[in-house]
């Protein structure tokens, strides 16, 4: 019951947010972003699938995958914004009984990434259209859990990294924005080397390396 009440409230809020009473097509407005503006991007996907035949050690008999990411930027002034983001992926897989010694098993894999940042959005004009060139920096926290049912164990990973981004925001209408962004995340990961003899594990060394991830994205955002 609580879930339904919560869902109702969320839907009503969504209805109020998308109420286009204030919308006017004026994409050439010089100030399509101003102090107090909020830019949001949203992605949500769910896929539950199963296969009747031809599954082997690579194929799942079935799986469920839920993923979403949300991003908000709030403009403190006409050019400076604070941003927050959340990205969550949850996957549950039922694998075929390929290895007879352990039987059919299930893998639960979930990760969440939370980010905070600040950016400067410089107004420029491209093809007679008001556009913003932005640079942004911030920190993020990543946590993941990988759990295999038959082994009754889970592998957890978490780290804090930093990110830098640049790109363009181009208004397609008063509320719809086209994003072109190039983003680089950097994060530390600890590599532990060891040996195992007669069931006794001995750690040899422990090194921290900085991994990186570069992302070039084209997508839509909405301004409120």
């Amino acid at each position, binding site marked *: 019951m609580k879930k339904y009440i919560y*869902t109702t409230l969320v839907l009503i809020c969504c209805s109020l947010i998308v109420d286009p009473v204030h919308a006017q097509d004026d994409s050439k407005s010089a100030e399509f972003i101003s102090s107090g503006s909020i830019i949001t*991007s949203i992605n*949500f*996907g769910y896929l539950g699938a*199963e296969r009747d035949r031809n599954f082997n050690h690579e194929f*799942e008999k079935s799986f469920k995958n839920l993923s979403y990411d949300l991003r908000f930027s709030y403009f403190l002034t006409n050019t400076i914004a604070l941003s927050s983001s959340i990205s969550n992926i949850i996957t549950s897989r039922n694998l075929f009984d390929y290895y007879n010694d352990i039987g059919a098993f299930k893998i639960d894999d979930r990760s969440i990434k939370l980010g905070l940042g600040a950016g400067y959005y410089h107004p420029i004009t491209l093809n007679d259209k008001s556009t913003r060139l932005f640079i942004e920096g911030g920190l993020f926290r990543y946590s993941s859990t990988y759990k295999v049912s038959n082994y009754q164990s889970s592998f957890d990973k978490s780290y804090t990294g930093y990110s830098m981004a640049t790109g363009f925001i181009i208004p397609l209408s008063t509320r719809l924005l086209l994003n072109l962004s190039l983003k680089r995340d950097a994060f530390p990961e600890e590599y532990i080397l060891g040996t195992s003899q007669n069931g006794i594990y001995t750690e040899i060394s422990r090194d921290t390396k900085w991994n990186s991830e570069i992302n070039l994205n084209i997508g*839509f955002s909405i301004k409120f």
Partner: protein
Amino acid sequence: MMIKKTTLYLIVTVLIAVPGIAQDTDYSFKKGDIIWVGNSNINSVKQYFYNSTNDEYHSVRSTQFSLNFKRISLLSESSGIGLLGQTQVLVSDRYNFSLSYLGAGALYRHYVLSRSKINMYVEGNSMLGYNIALADATGSTESDGFRIRPALKYGINFNLNKTAGLFFEIGPEWESSMKDLVFDSKALRATIGIQFLKNK
């Protein structure tokens, strides 16, 4: 069963909650309008692995390109035909391998409810693709061959103005190899996203 109940509940709640939206501006679809949905992404990850042969760490890079889209041309205010496509290419220099899939198809969409700011639709589409593997969660298969994937969708979209809207879509999909046309995979997919409307 639970999913069916929840879906029905969502639809009913939206129908109840949304008619309060003011109808002061006409954002209705017109014949000749074109609807675009999709995104494109390139992701490149650099990580390290330990090589015991020479007792050194080596960096490896994996790069993935993905693109998916739908383009719908409205034949009238209540129906449209279109194209859909999706592709993904993954290249890793650690194992010197690449994985990719490519799919393209056609769709027919009929709007069962057309209001200025809210539209509800049913859609039938079919995609032919190489390595599309509906029931493969990790994309690990390399030799799934040519497969066909028909799907039914039920969707609702909220027009924010004449060019932008939010949509929610849900529906079943089936998939078969092209060799024997036995549909061995099935799925339920739901999506929330932003759509772009290009007016005629």
